[in-house]
């Protein structure tokens, strides 16, 4: 694992997050949510700081981080693309949309394009089943996406 140094300022920010939850270990998941909101992802050193502040083992923090699919230890692309693979989207062809994204971006799920622009992930149901298949770019929701529409979505962010 690459050693990334967090700046003093960031560490202080993180400690403040922990403090806002009274450094209560039962609030670990809430702390992780806030931390991921702040940093975009949860690298090892971040987890180490959290562990120390909440007085729990780093292994425990890591165990929790790796349990929940919402948490990620890898930085996402500038435009994170998520394809909904919920049942409604699946039966309306989400898999083909995913294949097309993989093909066009030449990356697999969980990867980021070499230029750091796009990353690809899957998620389970955003609850917009009426718009299936659904694709998210960042927080923007694209509904009724067809494989043919994939290129247009990517083009929107390519410049």
């Amino acid at each position: 694992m690459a050693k990334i140094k967090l700046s003093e300022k960031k560490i202080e920010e993180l400690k403040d997050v922990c403090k806002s939850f009274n450094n209560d270990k039962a609030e670990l998941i809430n702390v992780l949510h806030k931390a991921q909101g702040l940093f975009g992802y949860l690298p090892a050193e971040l987890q180490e700081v959290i562990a120390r502040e909440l007085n729990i083992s780093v292994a425990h923090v890591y165990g929790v981080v790796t349990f929940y699919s919402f948490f990620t230890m890898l930085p996402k692309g500038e435009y994170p693309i998520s394809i909904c693979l919920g049942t409604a989207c699946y039966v309306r062809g989400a898999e083909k949309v995913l294949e097309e994204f993989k093909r066009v971006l030449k990356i697999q799920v969980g990867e980021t394009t070499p230029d750091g622009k796009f990353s690809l992930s899957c998620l389970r149901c955003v609850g917009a089943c009426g718009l299936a298949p659904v694709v998210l770019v960042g927080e923007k929701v694209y509904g009724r996406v067809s494989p043919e529409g994939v290129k247009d979505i990517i083009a929107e962010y390519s410049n």
Partner: protein
Amino acid sequence: MKSAYHRLYKIFTITHIMEKIKSLSDLKMLQESLSAKINLREKINNSDALIQVKVAMATCGIASGAREVMEVFIEEFTKRNIDAVVTQTGCMGYCYAEPTVEITMPGVEPITFGYVDIKKASKIIDKYILNNELVDGIIPVNYETIDVQ
């Protein structure tokens, strides 16, 4: 986009000072005065009633552009000096036809329009609100809602 949304919050959330409700009878009194106010504004047979526009703003709706549609209604009403109340509401259940908007003209049963984009919102104002002429995409309300009382 976000700032506009927050502006909407301000317009359509509670403006009066909230005081603690001290008993069940206080609650019942508040209920009566509130529903009287709402009735005044909505009552079908009240010709002084306002035009009421409800935009379904659940995740589905917002993802399909309900926020923008709501803004169009507000802007157009302001621009054209139309007295109307625009509010957000939850999911009406017609996910296939999002964004959906329910319009209550004074004296008329509410009508729900589906597939309302920015263009269609203007069209609804021009045709239905100003001219009582319907536009395509009407969704019949096919459910019965219970009254809690």
